[in-house]
């Protein structure tokens, strides 16, 4: 794993890290024996509904970016199963198709058993007979082989009650979107579909389906063991618990930290220059200025002040020798190319916005370029089958806001960047044919 986990002694005092191996075992993968020694046996409840109540009082929210209350999804699937008399399916979503994020892959590499525990407990809570782990198995360090080994080991020891299948996610930005994921698992292209029906009601093979991010499931497995009060020992009252963050500072290398929600943003970014900028939440996220960053803490209540969200916990500091507009333009080009090509608003607006940003980044301003971007962004708001256009235009708007001075510089045909080397990670391969989506 290229990602380095990061923790300090003060973390140990509050019991962090919870999900990742303890610091003295840095980078050590948690085998089944270490896992059982550290966390104890898998606490099946053998009674429906009790875990859902615990999750509710713990206040666990989805860690894949949406921050949706987990107990409500569990309850919805459980209710739908009763209503339609269908046995539900549970899917652990480890697609992590956000290029700037590395926390799910790191978690699956270092603590796979915690995720698999969570998958079993969630399956028990909703009464599912199907459990699928959806991930980029071949991404790095052969996570796939490691997961297969872990699953086989658990089966041998009789730990898992529901057999777990491993599914490979295509390398597309939208592959982790719930409806795209479902479409892929049903044998079609991994493109988002229109809701309703909600997948909690009719998902995989028309069965009620629970999709949870792998980190969410790992938290769930720990809440089942240690209870809601333990979970709430860190984090804020409104947004309790800890989260995995992918932090990139000036060297550009991803570092995975497990931090309590609500910590000051600066503890993740380190000291910032006066004119620095921070990207929060990844490529559907928000740029904020160093001035804003000093006021913010890592929870949605605070980040809302800067129109930002915790998202999947990505925090990136822009180095002083790079241009925020050039970096944003490169990412937006990637996002536009990752459009599924289904819905008009996305298909028509994103390539135009990407081209306009390329004009701005390249200093080839035309009269009305900025106004065009504003207008197109307004026109796509809230439309399409998924949030891809919304997330992209939010990202673009925050860049134009945060780097207003840089935009003015580009207008004059100049750019402040000393280095032309790309900083934000952007995959090179773009989809050319239908098979790239399957």
């Amino acid at each position, binding site marked *: 794993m290229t990602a380095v986990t990061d923790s300090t002694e003060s973390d140990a005092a509050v019991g962090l890290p919870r999900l990742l191996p303890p610091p003295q075992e840095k980078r050590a993968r948690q085998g089944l024996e270490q896992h059982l020694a550290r966390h104890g046996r898998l606490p099946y409840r053998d009674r429906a509904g009790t875990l859902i109540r615990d999750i509710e009082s713990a206040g666990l929210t989805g860690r894949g970016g949406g921050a949706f209350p987990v107990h409500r999804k569990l309850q919805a699937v459980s209710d739908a199963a009763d209503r339609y008399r269908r046995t539900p399916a549970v899917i652990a979503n480890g697609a992590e198709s956000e290029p700037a994020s590395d926390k799910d892959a790191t978690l699956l590499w270092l603590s796979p058993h915690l995720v698999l525990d969570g998958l079993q407990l969630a399956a028990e809570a909703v009464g599912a007979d199907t459990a699928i782990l959806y991930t980029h198995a071949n991404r790095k360090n052969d996570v796939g082989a490691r997961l297969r080994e872990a699953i086989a080991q658990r089966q041998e020891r009789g730990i898992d009650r529901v057999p777990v299948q491993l599914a490979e996610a295509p390398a597309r930005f939208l592959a982790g979107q719930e409806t795209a994921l479902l479409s892929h698992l049903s044998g079609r*292209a991994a*493109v988002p*579909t*229109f809701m*309703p*029906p909600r997948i909690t009601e009719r998902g995989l093979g028309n069965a009620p389906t629970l999709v949870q991010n792998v980190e969410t499931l790992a938290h769930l497995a720990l809440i089942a063991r240690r209870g809601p009060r333990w979970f709430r020992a860190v984090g804020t009252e409104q947004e309790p618990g800890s989260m995995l963050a992918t932090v990139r500072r000036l060297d550009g290398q991803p570092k995975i930290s497990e931090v309590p929600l609500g910590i000051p943003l600066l503890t993740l970014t380190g000291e910032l220059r006066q004119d620095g900028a921070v990207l929060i939440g990844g490529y559907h996220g928000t740029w904020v200025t160093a001035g804003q960053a000093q006021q913010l803490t890592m929870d949605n209540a605070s980040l809302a002040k800067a129109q930002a969200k915790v998202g999947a916990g990505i925090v990136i500091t822009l180095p002083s020798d790079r241009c925020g507009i050039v970096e944003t333009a490169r990412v937006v*080009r990637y996002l*536009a*190319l*990752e*459009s*599924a*090509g*289904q819905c*008009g608003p996305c*298909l*028509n607006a*994103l*390539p*135009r916005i*990407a*081209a306009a940003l*390329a*004009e701005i980044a390249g200093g*080839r301003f*035309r*009269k*009305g370029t900025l106004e065009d971007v504003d207008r197109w962004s307004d*026109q796509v708001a809230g439309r399409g089958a998924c949030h891809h256009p919304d997330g992209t235009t939010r990202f673009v708007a925050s860049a134009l806001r945060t780097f207003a001075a840089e935009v003015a510089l580009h207008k004059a045909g100049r750019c402040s960047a000393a280095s032309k080397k790309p900083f934000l990670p952007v995959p090179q391969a*773009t*989809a*050319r*044919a*239908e098979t*790239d*989506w399957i």
Partner: protein
Amino acid sequence: MNQLLGKGSHTEIVSGINSSTVMWYASRATGVVALLLLTAVLLLGIGVARDKRLPGLPRFAASGLHRNVSLLATAFVAVHVVTAVADGFVKIPITAAVVPLASSYERFWLGAGAVSFDLMLAAVITSLLRRHLSRKTWRGVHLTAYLCWPVAWFHSVFASKDIQHGPLLAVGIACALAVLAAAMWRVAEAGKDVPRAERVALLMAAAHSRIHSKGSRERTFAQ
């Protein structure tokens, strides 16, 4: 004419509309306008389905117009139905508006009108509730618009004698020809679909080439 009706007042001769015929004329007129509006809705709908732009208007104008004109058409059909029922010259029960064959007057052709009105209501209501329906359901119902229009056309042309000659017949035929041409274009166009996975790259290339080419906006900028 003048001599036959000679004793009447001037206004009666010119208009032919009086308190006993106003409903009848209103029904005729709204019926004809509704046919024109429904034709426009269908043409716009075909355009929207193929992602066509209206010249000089932004991209969303076609779908916005399609939506609003369809609501306007519904209003005209409603007035058309209510005035036809309210007119006392022929007895048409109000149920005949939605129940086919419920009227003894022009049983078959009024039935056709009821069928097309039902299909129209189905399309409008499912579109208003679109957020709550699956795309498949909505699309399934919406496709019946292709059935709704021909039925409405036959109702228009055959339910009354006054559209079977003169300028009104020309209007009816023009509507039919326009829809026929649009439908044929729609079928021909469907064969030229770009596969979904290739669309973005194509549009991306087009958007970027506009930066480098001397587009109309660049000329404006130079002036």
